[in-house]
């Protein structure tokens, strides 16, 4: 037993002194995490995105004596509530706006058509607010669509209110006086103000267990899941990179030297395997502590979180050892580390964890990789799932790890015995 720990400790010491190991197991994932943190505002704090530059074109030509409702639309876009999100630029024409988009000065343009006031304040007819957007952008168009649709709906419902009120009054034999219209406008204004920013109070949302979900910062969730994806990727990478020492020692002769010492082969292998495990423990602990401190990631309940850590470490170590057991020498490890890890990480969903509505077959393919199972387990932990679900995935991963270890051990024992 002592010799097993002696070998494992020596491997850990060598790993810690290796710039390559420090780089790949700690610097790379932390660098990326800082990058994401800087990109998304540090997590847990303001996650304001860049201001969206919009060109506003008011082509509205109201009938004589009627107010220019296009200017009202402009005022809404220019209001205090949207100032942090949108930078508005008034331009004279659609052509000028399009040129600005092509030169990437604007993300989009909002065009109020010429018949806007006429349709809104007149009888019947329909009109469209046009939003022309930079096709290379994804977020700005979505935000703009939402804001513009809200504005359009407000005008539409106000017009419906006026026409229905007049119709009802006339049905009851009354006449729509100026006072009546003034009263209607006041009601429209009061209604808009009371409804702005209010999400439906008529809807309570509970989870399928009948409990209220805690309000969570969406961006924090995204950062958490990205961090998990990277942690899993680099854990598996480290597992393989550390296991490579078996091949390197075989080439350098230090493995043979161990074999000629009074140390059973099983102890030597056990020591190497333990070295991989301990190295992973160090890596994961450092990553988890730093990510909690820097990105304020809430890892959830301690018991569930520890299960996920154990499963990840075991699976990563086992997978790495398994892969190395199939190689002849260390010159082939580049392909394993770079190629196989990247491919299995990709198929396992580590790079696409934030994307919704994945095709079904990809969800199935994911199950063929240990990384896919690890990601599912960590997502359950982050989402506060129950122990039953978590224990199931934990057991699957642990079984995988055991199978990997058994196969790796069998192959290495055979390799070293058959000479």
């Amino acid at each position: 037993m002592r010799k097993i720990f002696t070998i494992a400790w020596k491997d850990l010491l060598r790993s810690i002194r290796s710039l390559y190991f420090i780089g790949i197991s700690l610097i790379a994932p932390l660098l990326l995490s800082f990058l994401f943190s800087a990109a998304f505002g540090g997590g847990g704090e303001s996650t304001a995105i860049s201001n969206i530059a919009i060109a506003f074109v008011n082509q509205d030509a109201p009938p004589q004596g009627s107010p220019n409702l296009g200017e009202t639309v402009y005022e809404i876009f220019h209001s205090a509530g949207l100032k942090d999100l949108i930078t508005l630029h008034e331009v004279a024409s659609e052509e000028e706006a399009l040129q600005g988009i092509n030169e990437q000065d604007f993300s989009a343009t909002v065009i109020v058509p010429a018949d806007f006031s006429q349709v809104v304040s007149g009888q019947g007819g329909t009109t469209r607010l046009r939003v022309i957007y930079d096709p290379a952008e994804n977020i700005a168009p979505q935000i703009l669509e939402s804001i513009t649709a809200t504005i359009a709906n407000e005008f539409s419902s106000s017009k419906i209110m006026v026409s229905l009120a007049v119709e009802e009054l006339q049905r009851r034999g009354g006449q729509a006086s100026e006072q009546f219209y003034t009263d209607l406008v006041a009601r429209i204004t009061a209604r808009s103000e009371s409804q702005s920013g209010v999400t439906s109070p008529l809807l309570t949302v509970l989870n399928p267990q009948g409990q209220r979900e805690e309000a969570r910062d969406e961006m924090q969730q995204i950062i958490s899941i990205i961090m998990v994806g990277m942690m899993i990727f680099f854990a598996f990478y480290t597992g393989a990179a550390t296991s490579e020492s078996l091949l390197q020692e075989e080439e350098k002769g230090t493995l043979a030297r161990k074999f000629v010492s009074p140390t059973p082969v099983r102890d030597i292998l056990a020591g190497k395997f333990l070295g991989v495990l301990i190295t992973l423990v160090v890596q994961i602990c450092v990553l988890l502590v730093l990510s909690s401190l820097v990105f304020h990631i809430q890892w959830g309940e301690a018991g569930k979180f520890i299960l996920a850590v154990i499963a990840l470490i075991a699976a990563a170590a086992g997978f790495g050892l398994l892969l190395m057991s199939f190689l002849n020498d260390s010159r082939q490890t580049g392909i394993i580390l770079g190629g196989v890890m990247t491919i299995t990480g990709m198929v396992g969903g580590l790079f696409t964890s934030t994307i919704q509505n994945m095709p079904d077959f990809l969800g199935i393919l994911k199950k063929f990789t240990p990384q896919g199972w690890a990601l599912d387990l960590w997502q359950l932990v982050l989402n506060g799932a129950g122990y039953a679900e978590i224990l199931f995935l934990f057991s699957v991963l642990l079984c995988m790890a055991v199978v990997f270890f058994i196969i790796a051990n069998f192959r290495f024992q055979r390799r070293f015995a058959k000479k």
Partner: protein
Amino acid sequence: MENAVEVKGLKKFYKDVKAVNGVDFTIQSGEIFSLLGPNGAGKTTIINMLTGLFPPNAGDALIFGHSIQKEPLKAKALMGVVPQEIALYEDLSARENLVFWGKLYGLRGKQLQTRVDEVLELIGLRDRQRQRVSKYSGGMKRRVNIGIALLHLPKLVIMDEPTVGIDPQSRRHILDNVLQLNSQGMTVLYTTHYMEEAQELSTRIAIMDQGKVVASGRHADLVKLVGEQDRVELTLSQDGEKVLKAWKKVLGVSKIDQDGEKITLLVSDSNAVLPELFKIAHQQNARIASIAIHEPNLETVFLHLTGKALRD
């Protein structure tokens, strides 16, 4: 006297190649025993079997009475091995290397630290013990390589061609170390293809070729096998196939071996045979470009027994 090593019928095959084809020898406790032979003779394969790296296909060996097949761990505990290639952790210091390997040989605590200090002193690296091995010269690395084998005070030290590819000064240092260890009571099994080393160091020598021991014994006894035969080495200025054919028929020439330009002959009396050799060469219009005459030694013995020169 106790036998340190008893090798009985050891065999090792690789597909069609018989790397070791039934080898028997005994090493007595306290002696320096050399395995001498050219590359590919099977010396390293025997070492690898004795040290437990490969299992033999047949036969067994006892290390101070412990079978390498049935009691491998006990056998290994009594051996210290100096491999041919340097096997060290370059990113650890000399001290760290020694401590690690000492632990694998069962040393602990104060005993381990004391032995590490002693070995560092012995190999002359006490002042640089904390420096990483990657910063050492080749000679220094070799010293650490040897030091590891001595940590646990083994009864048997096995050195597999430890002087290959090193400078004369380092080689001398190693040879002196071997003699010193032996003087302290260690049994040494030493493999080499350098005849001079085997001659200088060994109590007894086993000559190997093509997986077999072709002769073994003390240096003086081995030389007697070739009697008073001299070894003549010469080169011809052009292709001498016809010349060699004619020389084979000369009385007194017992063996001829050609390796490139170098031709080696075993002759009973060089004074008598040489004039005949020159005459035949002259008749064949061949010119002898260089010639050297050696008194009987292990090279002569090897040539006599195998028909080949002991080449580098």
